């Protein structure tokens, strides 16, 4: 079945507009309709997953519409092995997040669901964008609904958290805008996107730019800063724990599940392949930061008494591993990173949902308030335990494959870094088991916990797909991993400057009857 990529990408946005037109009094029904829209989006996104051709590194399901012809900007969308898994992950997590919020968000439901849908569209757009300009627009737009989700529906310190989140993000965005403008200037001056000749301002044609080492250094910094803040990398990670603690459950799920991955995705899509010389310069420095992040995040997680904050810091540690694999800049490292992003999206998404379950019942997330909960909530305990071990990287669950491949990739780059990063395995088990013990084990002493109801039918519906995916991704990872192969291979060759990037666009552009002028494709360095 042929499904249009732009349709799926914008379906949630259209849905949001529809919801906003509906009368507020329909509250619950609006919520359900929003869920339905995101569910359809998820179902349609699976068409891309199953229709994906694993044999090629080219963009698939491509669409391009002339947008700003005078600037050579096309509304150009497409998916390849770098983006396909994250695209589907986004589409699958959003309905679960919306469903989880049914009943727990009771204020401004219409706006809440709309914001989630708008956010979904922007995230999908960021991942599908092939044009740098389109990417940047989506990237910046993502900030708005996320900030509103935290700022309007968040916890008591939501304003501080929102401001911090916005400040960090904007601090990264401005250099990226400058870098994009500079890129545009060089792209015009080198005649790649000459007026009337459509190659588009997309990352594939930009790969043909000739940039000096100095230019690459600055451009890399301009792009990478924004991405590493999003990841987040130590020491620009402190917005994350605050954003997570204050965000409503659905917001946390999307934030941890998808939004952080945008940083990793951006590095893979732009920062590394477009400016390999610049990237190479900073790699040793960034690798060190990644390892510090892994260990620092884990240690700080160990010191937390707020369950949500603990998991937020575990994300810092895990995403450090993702960045480590990316900057290992070899096939195993990058495949591992992409897989780790998928796995982390599933397991941490599930963890935030689980924290939401308990927060809704007790309106506290302090570890000391709990203990012995397994007695009254055995189902909850079972799912939590499974998710814990997925997060810890137990082989057979989703966390292991990515972790192992990343370590293998890093090992080829620096054995010391790999050894230090592997320490995260120990600390990860430590803080997660501390969490499990604190919440579930021991005597149930707190009277308020005695009557806690176990998972509701709705909660089970939300969690079961994640549980199944965590097991599937651990036991049978090849269908996911295979999708990344060809694109990662091409990407690694590009990063290592082994061959000039293939003029993949030509095939597509030929359909339009256009030619591309390729200059400076050969590396003269």
């Amino acid at each position, binding site marked *: 079945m042929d499904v249009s990529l732009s349709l799926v990408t914008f379906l949630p946005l259209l849905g949001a507009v529809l919801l906003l037109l509906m009368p507020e009094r329909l509250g619950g029904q609006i919520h359900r309709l929003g869920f339905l829209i995101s569910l359809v989006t998820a179902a349609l996104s699976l068409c891309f997953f199953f229709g994906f051709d694993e044999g090629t590194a080219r963009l698939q399901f491509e669409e391009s519409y002339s947008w700003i012809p005078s600037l050579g900007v096309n509304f150009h969308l497409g998916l390849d092995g770098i983006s396909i898994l994250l695209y589907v992950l986004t589409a699958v997590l959003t309905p679960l997040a919306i469903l989880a919020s049914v009943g727990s968000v009771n204020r401004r439901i219409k706006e809440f669901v709309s914001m989630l849908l708008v956010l979904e569209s922007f995230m999908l757009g960021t991942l599908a964008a092939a044009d740098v300009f389109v990417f940047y627009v989506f990237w910046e737009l993502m900030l708005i609904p996320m900030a509103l989700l935290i700022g309007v529906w968040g916890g008591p310190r939501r304003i501080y958290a929102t*401001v*911090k989140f916005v*400040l*960090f993000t904007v601090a990264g965005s401005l250099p990226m805008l400058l870098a994009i*403008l*500079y890129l545009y*200037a*060089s792209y015009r001056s080198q005649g790649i996107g000459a007026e009337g000749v459509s190659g588009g301002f997309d990352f594939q044609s930009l790969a043909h730019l000739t940039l000096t080492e100095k*230019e690459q250094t600055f451009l890399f910094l301009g792009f990478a800063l924004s991405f590493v803040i999003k990841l987040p990398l130590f*020491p*620009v*990670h*402190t*917005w994350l724990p605050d954003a997570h603690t204050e965000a409503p459950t659905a917001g946390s799920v999307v934030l941890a599940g998808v939004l952080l991955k945008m940083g990793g995705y951006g590095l893979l899509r732009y920062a590394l392949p477009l400016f390999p010389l610049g990237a190479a310069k900073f790699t040793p420095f960034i690798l060190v930061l990644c390892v510090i992040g892994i260990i*620092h995040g884990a*240690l*700080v997680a*160990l*010191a*937390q008494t707020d369950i949500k904050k603990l998991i937020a810091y575990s994300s810092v540690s895990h995403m450090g591993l993702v960045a480590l694999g990316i900057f290992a800049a070899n*096939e*195993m490292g990058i*495949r591992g990173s992409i897989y780790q992003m998928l796995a982390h999206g599933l397991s941490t998404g599930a963890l935030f949902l689980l924290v939401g379950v308990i927060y809704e019942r007790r309106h506290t997330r302090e570890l000391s308030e709990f*203990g*012995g909960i397994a*007695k009254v909530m*055995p*189902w909850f305990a*079972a799912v939590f335990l499974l998710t814990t071990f997925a997060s810890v990287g*137990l*082989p*057979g669950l989703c966390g*292991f*494959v990515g972790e*192992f*491949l990343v*370590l*293998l990739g890093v*090992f*080829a780059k620096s054995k010391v870094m*790999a*050894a230090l990063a*592997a*320490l995260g*395995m*120990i600390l990860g*088990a*430590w803080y997660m*088991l*501390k969490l*499990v*013990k604190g919440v*579930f*084990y*021991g*005597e149930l002493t707190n009277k308020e916990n005695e009557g806690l109801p*176990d998972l509701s039918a709705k909660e089970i519906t939300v969690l079961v797909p994640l549980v199944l995916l965590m097991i599937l991704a651990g036991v049978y*990872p*090849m269908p996911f*991993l295979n999708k990344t192969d060809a694109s990662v291979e091409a990407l690694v060759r590009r990063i290592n400057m082994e061959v000039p990037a293939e003029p993949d666009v030509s095939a597509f552009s030929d359909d339009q009857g256009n030619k591309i002028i390729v200059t400076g494709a050969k590396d003269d360095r």
Partner: protein
Amino acid sequence: MADSIAWIPGVLLLGAAVNGLLTLCSAHRGGPKKGMVIPFALGAPWIAFALSVMAFFKVKGGEVLSTSLYQWFDGTLFTVDVAFQMDSLSAVMILVVTGVGALIHTYAVGYMSKDPGFGRFFSYLNLFTFFMSILVLGSSPLLLFVGWEGVGLCSYLLIGFWWKDGAKAQAGSKAFIVNRIGDVGFVLGVLLIISTVAASGKSVHDFASLEAFATGDGKAALESPFIGSFSVVEVAGFLLRLGAFGKSAQLPLYVWLPDAMAGPTPVSALIHAATMVTAGVYMVARLHFLFVMAPTAMAFVAIVGALTALFAATIGIAQNDIKQVLAYSTVSQLGFMFAAVGVGAFSVGIFHVVTHAFFKALLFLGAGSVIHGPHEEQDMRKMGGLIKIMPITGWTMIIGSLALSGVPPFSGFFSKDEILASTLHPHPAFPGGIGPILYVILTIASLCTAFYTFRMVWLTFFGESRVDPEVRKKAHESPAIMTLPLVILAVGAAAIGFLGVPHALGGHNVFGSFVRQTVTSEVEAAHEGSGALLLVGIAVAIAILGVLTSYWFYRVRPSIPGRLFAGLGGFGRLVASAYRVDALYAKTIVNPLTRSAKRIFYEVIDVRFVDGLVNFFGSFTKGLAGLMRLFQTGAVRTYVFFMMIGAILLVWSVFSWS
């Protein structure tokens, strides 16, 4: 397909899944009915055992069984398949795992009969056996690691089975975390090997191709210097052994095992005596072709093993909790096994794994029966004279104790004797003098073993009853479902040693020859027939000396131990408190780490430094915004003016830059 060895893990997983789901679905109604749990709980391990026996006969004929299900994942130049293989080494292990495992499952039906977590228990126990079967049948290091971590998970779940007691849950966490320290070593070792293989442009996917690589093309690469004068394979061997030290509770990572006794006793028998803890020994034997290339790492391991054997044996002497005696005994016996595989006597180490599985499982189950009888009492000072009340438990445990002490002709004698003999013929590349040192250490450890074992026997079963008279009235022998496995294990503990009668005693060492179908290395072959009669004599004398001394101390002159203990003063208390290693670790590692995590990493770095900087910029920007407000005149002319300036600056910077 129907006779594929994949069915062995298959049925076990099925058992675990069925009982797991049954338990979850009835979690709010007090758990599933016992009658529903038992068919799968017992069916799974017994069918797996039957399948293993059938497969064993094929392997005995010289066949190596293998089956591949699908590709798990791959990387540059390597693939990992979900594939199983059964050669003679795996066959021995799977027979122990499923055979002893099935007996322990059966026993546990009786032991756990009144426990509300009956279904959950058997789900975990089946899951454990499943992962154990993956561990011994997995055809590649990574699949072995799946089992390796999986059994760790089940160990965690089962140690903390009675999680309402926070201390027990804590013991489970401790086991998993300490094991993870070793696991990191294991993973790094595997990474090093895979990278070395990949760097040579070769591709490996299982143990067989790895062995071909190590003994063929890859020999030079593996033996090239890596860190200082240590070769790649020495470092890899060291890292892998770190994993073995964690899983098999060796110095300095043994601390989790004594705490692991918090789990139900069948768990201690199955996981923390018979099977999981011997995984490290199995792994070393499985990768023997790598280890023989790393004599320094091997010598290191032999020494650590021997020291652990002695260290734990001395602690065992001073314990009053019957399960703690057995726990330290297990640590000590694992040390013996490591000493054996350390000197290169792989089949001997595996032989001790097998005999130990029988007699230690028997002793643990017996201890469980004892605990069950006088109603949850584990302190031996409150026992005594129990042989009259529970004769089957008592006599089977005495058989187990004889085997553990190394009294001929019980099984432990044969395997321990071979270990002692093999230390005198270590790997030829070892520095001279190590062999005799190992021999002396292990002989002293043997003496302690015989002593603490029979101390336990005398205190528990003989002498005046120190059981509370009220409790005594209710004390009883355990039901048949528990005593029958005891009897079967006792027969095994008594007789299984005859599989490995050394040549020096006129035997053929059938066991050794069988394992050597797989473990073919020259170091191994050197041991054939090394057990001189003199050594046998010394071993027997030591065992009997230990038994007799304990008889003298605890039956003839019961006042001696107290006086001796008092005479030892501080040292005695140090030994009784297991050298206070836990406190030492807490003081030097755990507490500083948790404290600095909070006070330095969180409060200083994150809160004060990074966030402080952010907040500073925040207020700085606020101030700046106040300044900027001056420009917001509302007049279009001003805006256009500033826009122009901005545009000029931008254009200028772009051009001056390029």
